[in-house]
């Protein structure tokens, strides 16, 4: 049995016992998608439902996104990043810790559909995976891809692949990867201002302002988002590039110090914008200035809610 199958089985068993034992009212996990390369969010409320739960490398969405405002007791099938966001949401009072059961899944990384499409542009009918490869079939063809070649960027620099604060892990820990060293950003920052501005403007030129990135983000639970504000209207509603830029900058700022690099935003983006570039600039700043990583402890204080009298800020004259 492959490791994935084992994890799937463990998730189902545990989910059933949690529901039966009354420790959870709902298990939020993934089911097999109706399209290839997709594991869809799934809400299991009965032991029978649990048979639909699966684990795969297509579980890209961050399920912590479904916690805020929920009144039921939730068991959350969580990757390292999902678990960290769940911890963050507890810290931010979005979900009570005593109702939460984190069913941690040590994660070996999630597949980037765009990377797959780049390697196999033909229409894909089915996708089947083993522990380290993906078999794709389509009208008149079949292709095998090595999983490591098509993982998402953020999964390649994930230092917390095994959930840190899970109530229970469904499998053995997976080794952590070296964390994002931001070397590409450092190289980008070495370029001229003009080049950088061009880079970032190009990055978002296709943005539709659909806000899927926001909606997929577990940090974005505000009852009213600044983009929807009318008095004052922070942002124009058109596709004006500066309004679009402002959206991405402020979205980044709002996530600063809270982002776990789960990549849900990029997964959700229908036009494949690397929206996390903005977050990464800030992640880098947060890390360099305050050595802070979110979601690693229940009582962590996000960097914008605290200060040090000697916070470094040489640019302030």
């Amino acid at each position, binding site marked *: 049995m492959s490791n994935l199958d084992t994890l799937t089985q463990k998730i189902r068993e545990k989910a059933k016992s949690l529901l039966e034992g009354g420790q959870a009212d709902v298990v939020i996990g993934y089911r097999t998608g109706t399209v290839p390369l997709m594991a869809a969010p799934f809400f299991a409320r009965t032991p029978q439902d649990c048979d639909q739960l699966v684990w795969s490398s297509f579980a890209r969405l961050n399920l912590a996104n479904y916690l805020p405002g929920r009144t039921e007791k939730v068991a959350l099938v969580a990757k390292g990043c999902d678990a960290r966001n769940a911890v963050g949401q507890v810290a931010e009072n979005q979900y009570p810790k005593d109702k939460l059961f984190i069913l941690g899944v040590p994660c070996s990384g999630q597949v980037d559909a765009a990377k797959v499409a780049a390697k196999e542009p033909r229409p894909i009918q089915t996708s089947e995976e083993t522990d380290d490869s993906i078999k794709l079939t389509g009208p008149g063809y079949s292709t095998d891809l090595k999983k490591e070649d098509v993982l998402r960027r953020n999964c390649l620099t994930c230092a917390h692949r095994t959930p840190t604060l899970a109530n229970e892990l469904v499998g053995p820990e997976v080794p952590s990867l070296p964390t994002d060293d931001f070397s590409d950003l450092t190289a980008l920052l070495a370029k001229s201002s003009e080049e950088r501005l061009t880079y970032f403007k190009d990055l978002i030129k296709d943005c539709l302002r659909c806000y899927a990135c926001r909606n997929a983000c577990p940090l974005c639970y505000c009852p*009213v988002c600044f983009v929807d504000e009318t008095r004052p209207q922070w942002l124009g509603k058109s596709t004006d590039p500066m309004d679009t830029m402002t959206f991405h900058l402020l979205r980044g700022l709002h996530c600063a110090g809270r982002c776990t690099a789960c990549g849900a935003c990029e997964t959700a983006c229908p036009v494949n914008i690397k929206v996390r570039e903005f977050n990464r600039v800030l992640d880098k700043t947060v890390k360099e200035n305050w050595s802070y990583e979110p979601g690693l402890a229940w009582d962590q204080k996000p960097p914008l809610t605290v200060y040090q009298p000697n916070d470094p800020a040489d640019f302030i004259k």
Partner: protein
Amino acid sequence: MASKNIVGAVMVAGGGVAGMQAALDLANAGYYVYMVEKSLAIGGRMAQLDKTFPTNDCSMCIISPKLVEVGRHINVELLTLTDILSVEGEEGDFTVTVRKNPRYIDMSKCIACGECTKKCPRKLNNEYNENLDTRKAIYVQYAQAVPLKYGIDAKECIYLTKGKCGTCKKLCPADAINYEDKAEEITFHVGSVVLAPGFTPFKPTVFDTLRYNDVKDVITALEFERYLGATGPTMGHVIRPSDHQDPKKMAFLQCVGSREVNRAANGYCSSVCCMYAIKEALIAKEHSGGNLDVTLFYMDIRTFGKDFEKYYEKAKAAGIKFVRSRIHSVQPESGGGVKLHYVTDGGVSTLEFFDVVVLSHGLVITGETKELSKSLGLETDNYNFAKTSTFAPVALSRPGFYACGVFTGPKDIPSSVMEASAAAAAATSKLTPARSTLTKVIKVPRPVDVTGEPPRVGVFICHCGINIASVVDVPKVVEFAKSLPFVEYATNTMFACSQDSQEKLIALIKEYKLNRIVVSACSPRTHEPLFQETLAAAGLNKYLYEMANIRNHDSWVHAGHPAEATQKAMDMTEMAVAKAALLVPLKENVIDVDPTALVIGGGIAGLNAALTLSRQGFKSVIVEKDSKIGGNANRIFTTAKGESVADYLSDLKTRVQNDSNITLALNSHVSKVDGYVGNFESTLSGGQIVKHGVTIIATGAKEYKPNEYLYGENRRVVTQLEFDELLKADDQAVAAAKTFVFIQCVGSREKERMYCSKVCCTHTVHTAVELKKKNPEARIFVLYRDIRTYAQKEDLYKEARDLGVIFIRYEPERKPQVSQNGKNLSVKLLDPVSGHHLVMEPDYTILAAAIVSGQEHELGMMYKVPLDEDGWFFEAHQKLRPVDFATDGMFMAGLAHYPKPMEEVVAQAQAAAARAVTVLTQPKMTVGGIVAEIDQNRCSGCGVCKSVCPYSAIDLDDKGKAVVNEAMCKGCGNCASSCRSDAPSLRGFTNAGLFAQIDAAL
């Protein structure tokens, strides 16, 4: 007191920081205050300081709000240029006669535009800058002076001395000059008097060896302070005075005119010089970009206050050199700078060059004050400081007279402020029946409700004489203003702030039904309250007001660019109108105040606080976790002045127990807290619920239990308190003992407790003196790091030495070694001066154990008040609010704040009570105005606003949504900028309003 007539007014003499604090506390407690100041303006010495230690706060920044508050307080009558002539009568009803000297300026007319001073031909030394630059004969004391009114120096004015000139009168656009002004005598009645005459810095002219008189590069610390000041003669640039070059090396010489009984005849320690010298050294280093070498020559470093020791450590880490040596002589060098001749600790005679030498001169009582004390019949000590007792630290020898600040002894700003509040409490302890009999209340008509009306903005553009109009094309701005959306009426005015303009404004508001007012004139910092009062008088909510600062920020700084300045004035007016159109009337709500205090801690601090409150007519509940009251004082023998603590304490206990206003809850602690200022509800461990308006935390501290020097192993190694208990019990073994070794700094000034416990040196020296007096044959050794007998306590140190107590210094790296051989104790020490090992065989070794905090973190959490890293409760502001917490209605006193001797504990307790009275005295409190509010529909309950609120004014309600406690909110807006979904909004500074301003700016 037999007197029938009690006057509800108090005179405060001296407008420095102590006087100001006393005046405000008095006025806010329901007493009318006559504030008498001999100079043109209040502010005192603090106005001259650049930064304040140990926080390096900008001095002017922190006092200017106080200056403005005093200047504008309806119940503080400011009498500047005034001398006290006599005070007759007795406590409760004094008749004061003062002489008000002529200013030669009509204060009601002067708009402080400064036209007069620009053209005044008479230049003379500027005292504000320690005579390092010049001022004119018509002048303001300093730019932020209150009252901001010019005055003429009669002795220097050419017109007043020679009858010619008159330039200022010709130039004054407000016709405010009155050369005919005359001195007048004024008589008024007060119930008591608070004296805060302050000090003058010691003039080092008597020390010819220091060469202050003839060498330019030898300067005083206050002169150096002015060099450091942004408003000083070099605008903060550190220079070598002889040639204005950047100095490379500087020296500070400590104890100039202090701890010196020969020429200066000032035996006392000035208490503040070590700290200010370190501060100046640090700031100087900062100003010179680090290329400055600073050495401080000292006898003992006395960094005994809260966070002072850390400051000292910081200075050492910053590379400031500390050399323990008294300077032998100063030799000027031909190319500038001087050579200092000194002998190091090791006995090496050294000659070292310095570009600048700063003399850390002490604080001295002025001759005028000495005369005043004499004429008022007040007892003073050898040094002219007022005599007080440990247990009544702000009461003077003549009943009805109280003092604060340096008058009772050299001290720093927070101690002065603390004493000022204490003096306010003490000075009114017998005036309670007359409270609120003489104070005035502003009566305003009920504002008309403009909710829902479209904005009708009235715009008033001020000429300010020629101050604005000579640069800005005012009529053009008026025409422009008329074209702006929602502007109903726009006009110009010669002086918007003048009485007649204010009346016109009221009339126009009514005539045109104006519901928003914009005044384009000067700074809202100075004038907004005035116009807001006018709005209120016109029946308009005072928050429907916005100001454009087209004078300070425009005409005065763009005089050479009239076209651009006019455009800027138009833009600024447009911005103000844009914001004004979105202003809404702000409600101020009234909440009840429960006139009861909860005092936590039944030690000296708590008992005094409760008694002080009782004398003011307020009830309190004292919560004491022990089974008896008195706290640490139960163990102390005598005070440094020799007073018996036991006697005092038993009197205190009786008074408390017999006081019907005081309820004692022994064996109790607070277990739960709800509410906020005015309406606290605390549950005690016994289940009793106390409703109270204010809380005073006086939980005290503990003596550290040493884990060295054989403490706990040999019963003749004892702590100070234990030794006091032996003395109290008249212990026979102690009486028979011949040799005593005192070891100082046990547990203090060490890595885990980087603070000085403040009281131990004095305690030791006092005990040593007492032992010596009892038994002159006793051999007493004091092993110390620095002796810190600050202020007049220095006399004790001298006395001890005179009596033959041996003081031996040790280095923290080479602590004394205490060993025992059988019953015999042996103390071994390397004397850093002689280099010899000394061995003592004491009968008793007395350890000056540190004072450690009670680490009352739980209490802090319950009342939402912070503790610092050493566990001391953390005050709202280390300089100016030493007994307040940032959270309203919360105060502290005693050792919970920081170690301190008993007189300071008593003063702080009285101060806390005085501060509490300012809350309790109001039956209802007004809250609201510019405070935050939460739109709960937008609130996700994430709590970021709660985390960033500096005043703990935000909480999450039972639905998990944020709510603002208007009684605690100060209107900083931190919540509004931190919330991602804009749920909090700061009234008066809403997103929409600021957004409109930004848009109008572009």
